[in-house]
């Protein structure tokens, strides 16, 4: 009887530790992706090419993460990263392309 109780307690402890590790891992992964998206947003801004919503998406991602809604946070941060990457590509393309539009 006493041994079964001890086993159940051990099992609960193990489950709790597993959940904590998973949550911490997600949070760390979120932070990594957030930092990367923010770095790309900043690069787009330095090229005068930041899109309208990118900063707001990152702010919303942080809010979602602070509510422990990591699924939503990940989706938002991915949208921000995608926008920032597109903005950087746009700036690189426009470095030469603008000249072809000059009225002559």
């Amino acid at each position, binding site marked *: 009887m006493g041994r079964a109780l001890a086993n159940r307690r051990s099992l609960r402890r193990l489950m709790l530790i597993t959940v904590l590790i998973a949550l911490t891992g997600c949070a760390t992964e979120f932070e990594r992706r957030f930092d990367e998206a923010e770095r790309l947003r900043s690069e787009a801004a330095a090229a005068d090419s930041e*899109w*309208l919503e990118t900063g707001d998406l990152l702010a919303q991602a942080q809010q979602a993460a602070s509510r422990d809604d990591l699924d939503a946070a990940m989706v938002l941060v991915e949208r921000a990263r995608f926008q920032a990457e597109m903005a950087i590509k*746009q700036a690189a393309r426009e470095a030469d392309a*603008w*000249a072809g539009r*000059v009225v002559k």
Partner: protein
Amino acid sequence: MNLRIRKAAAVPGAIVAALLVQQIALAGPEEDRLAFVAYFQSRFPDIPFEQFANGIYAIDSDARSQWLEIEEFPPYEFAVERGKELWHKALPNGTMLADCFAAQLPDIRGQFPSFDVASGEVITLELAINDCRIENNQPPLEYDSSEMIDLTAYLAFEARGTKVDVRVPDDQPGALAAYESGKRFYYSKRGQLNFACADCHVTSAGQWVRADRLSATIGHTTHFPVYRSKLGGMISLQKRFAGCIRDVRAKPFELQSTQYRNLEYFLSYMSNGLEWNGPGARK
């Protein structure tokens, strides 16, 4: 063999083409302006050059008749009156704003934008007003504050009938660099919608965008600040820039940022020869 020859010939050909594009892009300000005028006069052959100062009201006759009725009781009149009072009111140390300017009315509006050699930057009317206040120990005005709008509305009103004559001095490389930066901004696509200013106001000038028609580039800077009916208030030229940037879903820049001042420099040069006709009224 033939293919190899064609490939070999294509390389210098591509280089020549690239250099030609670059040469065209780097044409001087006056060549740019003349090309603009010729372009818009060929697009709108029935519109006299001086009418481009009226923006879309030069192109759209229905909108023009509505605008002329609005001008019977101009909604910007109160701003002009308030601006006149502010202009003629001494600062606490007794200095008048007018004392800070080399020119006198009605020519103060026409002095800007200009390139300042000392700072290496484009100076706009708003910046010059704030510089004057700072020199006289007064806090600068917010660029879209009613005081700033009122002052610029008054100076624009006084300048009516004088001609836009923005200079890009040949002997100041910084001035040409600022002009080129504004030009590049104007032709560069940006934002989620991937639009350049020129896509709307050059390529598509006169076309409909939902219920509105797009104005031509020349004349864009002559009539600001404007009273916008849809906002129920006055806005500055650079606030309008920010609106366009937002419309293409790009993040707007700060008012009086280097980007907007250089853009104002380029666009104002494109309006050289037209009359200053601000403040204006727009939908």
